[in-house]
């Protein structure tokens, strides 16, 4: 039980960063299918730079790399007004190819999975020995401790701060926001690049926060799970954290069930986040809370 909870929190940590990032972009009305690509690029950049220049440089590189892919998404969606789904999928494809290619180039073919310096778990003395929840809450990679204030900050920003509320307007009804003098393009660009940087850090939380290495396509759909968390949470940040923890639990259960010899195939447990989200969507039906302008290109002056 102790180990299950601890593993669940560890597995949820990268998802939380990615989901919070995705929320910001989706709040601004830009679809975040490309979270997977940001995360994968961030995961690779973190490992490649940590390898040569240390973990903090690796972390910064992850944020920059994720932000750059997001900048491309922003340009394609906001300025060129391309189909956001197609743009997102194209960038995911690009991220998959470029990280695989550079991985074999940086580490050499067959050297994939080279161990690099990473962030080691931070054990908080005393608190971490609380039974059951101690290790889950107080013996985690530093990313986990950063995720909590980040989630609160994003939530506060969304509901209490003026730019956050303006961001809502930009995502719900850009034309209305523009008539009130809101620079819609600037808001959307900033939101998407921020989402890329956060998702990139989420990739780093996986690659140099937990595994300390990079393998091809190592995110393996976690960006889409984060997207599931956003949808599942009805685009609310703290709920999204809850969804990530739930999905982290499903992830951890695969390991624990194996260790405890419980005869549930791990593949079927792995489907849990997707099944749960689909069921939630069925129950919610049309009452899903997607931002009104989500996925619709905005043309200044058009009605």
């Amino acid at each position, binding site marked *: 039980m102790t180990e299950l909870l601890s593993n669940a929190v560890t597995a949820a940590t990268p998802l939380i960063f990615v989901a919070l990032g995705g929320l910001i972009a989706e709040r601004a009305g830009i679809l975040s299918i490309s979270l997977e690509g940001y995360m994968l690029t961030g995961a690779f950049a973190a490992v490649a730079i940590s390898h040569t220049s240390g973990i903090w440089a690796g972390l910064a590189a992850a944020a920059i790399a994720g932000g750059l892919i997001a900048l491309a998404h922003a340009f394609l969606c906001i300025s060129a007004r391309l189909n956001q*789904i197609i743009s997102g999928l194209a960038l995911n494809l690009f991220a998959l*190819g470029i990280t695989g290619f550079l991985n074999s180039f940086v580490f050499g073919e067959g050297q994939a999975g080279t161990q690099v310096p990473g962030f080691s778990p931070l054990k908080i003395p005393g608190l971490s020995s609380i039974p059951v929840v101690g290790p889950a809450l107080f013996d985690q990679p530093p990313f986990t401790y950063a995720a909590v204030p980040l989630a609160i900050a994003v939530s506060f920003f969304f509901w209490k701060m003026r730019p956050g509320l303006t961001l809502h307007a930009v995502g719900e009804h850009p034309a209305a926001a523009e008539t009130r003098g809101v620079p819609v393009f600037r808001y959307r660009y900033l939101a998407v690049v921020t989402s890329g940087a956060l998702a990139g850090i989420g990739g780093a939380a996986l690659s140099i926060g937990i595994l300390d290495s990079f393998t091809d396509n190592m995110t393996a759909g976690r960006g889409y799970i984060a997207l599931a968390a956003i949808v599942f949470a009805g685009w609310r940040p703290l709920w999204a954290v809850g969804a990530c923890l739930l999905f982290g639990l499903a992830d951890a259960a695969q390991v624990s069930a194996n260790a405890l010899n419980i005869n549930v195939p791990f593949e079927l447990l792995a489907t849990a986040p997707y099944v749960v989200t689909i069921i939630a969507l069925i129950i919610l039906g049309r009452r899903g809370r997607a931002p009104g302008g989500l996925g619709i290109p905005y043309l200044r002056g058009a009605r």
Partner: protein
Amino acid sequence: MPAKRLLESPLAGAIPAAIIALLVSGLLVAIAGVSPISAYKAIWEGGLGSSSALGATAVATLPLLFAALAFAVTFRAGLYNIGIEGQLYMGALASTVVGLYLHAPRGVVLPAAVIAGMLAGMAWGILPALLKVWRGVNEIVSSLFLSYIAIYIVGWLVSGPLEAPGLGVAQSEVIPEAARFPEIIAGSKLTWAILVALVAVILVWLLFRTPFGVDLRVLGGSRRVADYVGIDVSRTTIVAFAISGALGGLAGSVELLGNQYSLSPEFSPGWGYTGIAVAVLGAGAAWGIASAALFFGLIGAAAVELQFTEQLSPDFAVVVQAVALIVVLLGLKLQGQLLLRRSSRQAMEAEAGADQAAAAGGATVA
């Protein structure tokens, strides 16, 4: 005038994209320390120059072709079947089961395996449409998530009930000779599966010209208009996803029966997603998709060749494909804007002409 006609054709996007894709691939291999000339030679040697090279191209092209056709059918109606990867796995799974357990001559087992694959893909593909019609669930999210569920189900089956004993890896048994697509040239992977591909392209081309195809296009233009002209939107959505799913299933089926012969959790390198790129590159039209799939297939075959001769990571093919897609998208957008600007200028000129005529007319009356 010929310049104008070129500007209006989809080729205006495709040709620069092909050139830029070739330049990018040259740059990438140069970064990796391989001479670009040898990369371009690999396209010939790996993709065209011999019967085995043609086979390699066919193998790299076919799953993309079917996946792209699958996406195009829903895309025409403004719907997104992002879950082709899952339909592909389900198709491959059904074909594996039929291939392994139906002991019959080729004339029976091969068509049965292909049809089973189509039906399985259809069954999986229809789910997002049903959820959308029934509960208004967004099909992008549901089809994407159903893909992951399908892949995990296949992973579970091939490491459990369907696992080939004694291999130590999650993989099904190899299907017997009778269930495989026969080779056209012995020793080459160029199989009669290309006939299935040709039929599929023609059928999709025809489909887009039937009344149902027109309904798809109307629905893609505007849901409200579709309602007004009496199109049953729910029915059209479900049928579009059924056809799309069947084509997606066919992608997995043909790959299994024509190339891999056994099923594993790593069966597809993401054809379901790359197929979307191919569909967009082919402008959503049947023959455009066939050309785009062949283009991607050639890049794929060249990448396999380069991995063999120069130890180059095959991922470079994926980069080239993604770049080609983005360039084409931007090119088409630019083309659209140029055309729009010109037609609005023409409209303005026509309007100005009419004003002048009216003014002249007014003058004579006065």
